């Protein structure tokens, strides 16, 4: 593409250079050796100035800027890395603490549970014994009362039997005889 363009334009240039040469009385301006000293002289001055400017001002500033940025970026990355490891260790610490306290809580729970269970057991036993003794007591009292009542009834019955027999027969019945009729 480029070569074709150069070829075409060279032909066109040569063609028009003729008309130019006819009108101006010269060839291509590029071939005018008389202009060379001026071009080269001003090229040396301008390019020299540019070279000194680049060498002494632009490039050092560019270099420091670029390097400062690189330093800053790598420093920031280092800082971030450090913070990351720090955060990690803190997280680990935190997790360890949590597991520890979980274990502690579990042990406290089991301890207090066994303690309370023991206490409950103990008080249960005590209460049971108390209740049992109360039951025994009242049972014996009941039995005694029953016996007393039976005896009383028996005595009263005998008395009644004696009095009935006395009334009908005018005979005194002995207690032992009356007892025979009881059952």
């Amino acid at each position: 593409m480029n070569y074709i363009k150069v070829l075409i334009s060279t032909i066109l240039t040569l063609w028009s250079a003729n008309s130019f040469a006819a009108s101006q009385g010269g060839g291509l301006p590029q071939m005018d050796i008389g202009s060379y000293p001026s071009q080269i002289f001003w090229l040396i001055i301008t390019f020299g100035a540019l070279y000194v400017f680049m060498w002494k001002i632009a490039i050092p500033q560019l270099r420091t800027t670029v390097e400062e940025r690189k330093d800053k970026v790598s420093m920031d990355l280092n800082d971030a890395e450090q913070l990351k490891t720090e955060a990690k260790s803190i997280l680990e610490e935190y997790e360890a603490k949590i597991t520890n306290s979980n274990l502690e809580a579990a042990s406290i729970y089991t301890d207090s549970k066994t303690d309370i269970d023991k206490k409950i057991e103990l008080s249960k036993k005590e209460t049971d014994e108390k209740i049992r003794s109360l039951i025994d007591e009242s049972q014996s009292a009941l039995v005694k009362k029953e016996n007393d009542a039976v005896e009383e009834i028996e005595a009263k019955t005998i008395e009644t039997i004696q009095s009935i027999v006395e009334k009908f027969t005018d005979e005194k019945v002995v207690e032992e005889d009356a007892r025979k009729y009881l059952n």
Partner: protein
Amino acid sequence: MSAEKTPNLIDPIHQFVITTIAPIKVGNLDISFTNSSQFMVIATIAIMFFFMLGLSKRSIIPNRFQIMCELSYEFIADLLRTNVGDQGRAFFPFVFSLFMFIFFCNLIGLIPYTFTVTSHFAVTFAFAGLIFIGVTVLGFAKNGFGYLKMFYPSGVPIYMAPIIIPIEIISYLSRPVALSVRLMANMLAGHSIIKIFAGFIVMMGFFGVIPLAGLVAIYALETFIAFLQAYIFTILTCIYLNDALHPHH
């Protein structure tokens, strides 16, 4: 033929004519301040202004101008590092200035009514000749006569030497010519074509929209070529520098 009718409009060469602004003479030497010198000064000041603007507030987070400055700096620094290596550091100011100067001259030349400094053989050959002489001197200074081995690549059988050595010498000597003509011819051709197309637009009246579209496309291409030629000039300079510093290829 049409050139005869409207000579000033279609003449694509007129833009390359050097006109004197302030005549200066030292002895027999004419070093007048011309339009060429004027645009060299403009390009130099533009580059300085560009960097002053970009580097005025040097900050960690750059603004747009600073980004452009740093991009151009790192672009050329990378170019030099990959092509020459660490030994090329000393030549960085020159290579960077060279790239910026050619690039700005090419770009400024694309603005209508301006003058393209790099379209002149004297300027491009001055650069190419300076690079050629500098590289040759550097090559001999760094390698002594070992630099001559460049003309006889290792591994080539001895009976090939009579053919290879002249070819290598010719290719070495043609470097400055190739380097300077490439840049100058590209600028000359590109600007001539733009001028010719612009002439067609005027000549064709209403149908001038057709060459106008072409002109826009070519203008875009020329903008790219302005960068490309500056890049090629710079990368070839780097390659020649590398040859001088490490001649055993």
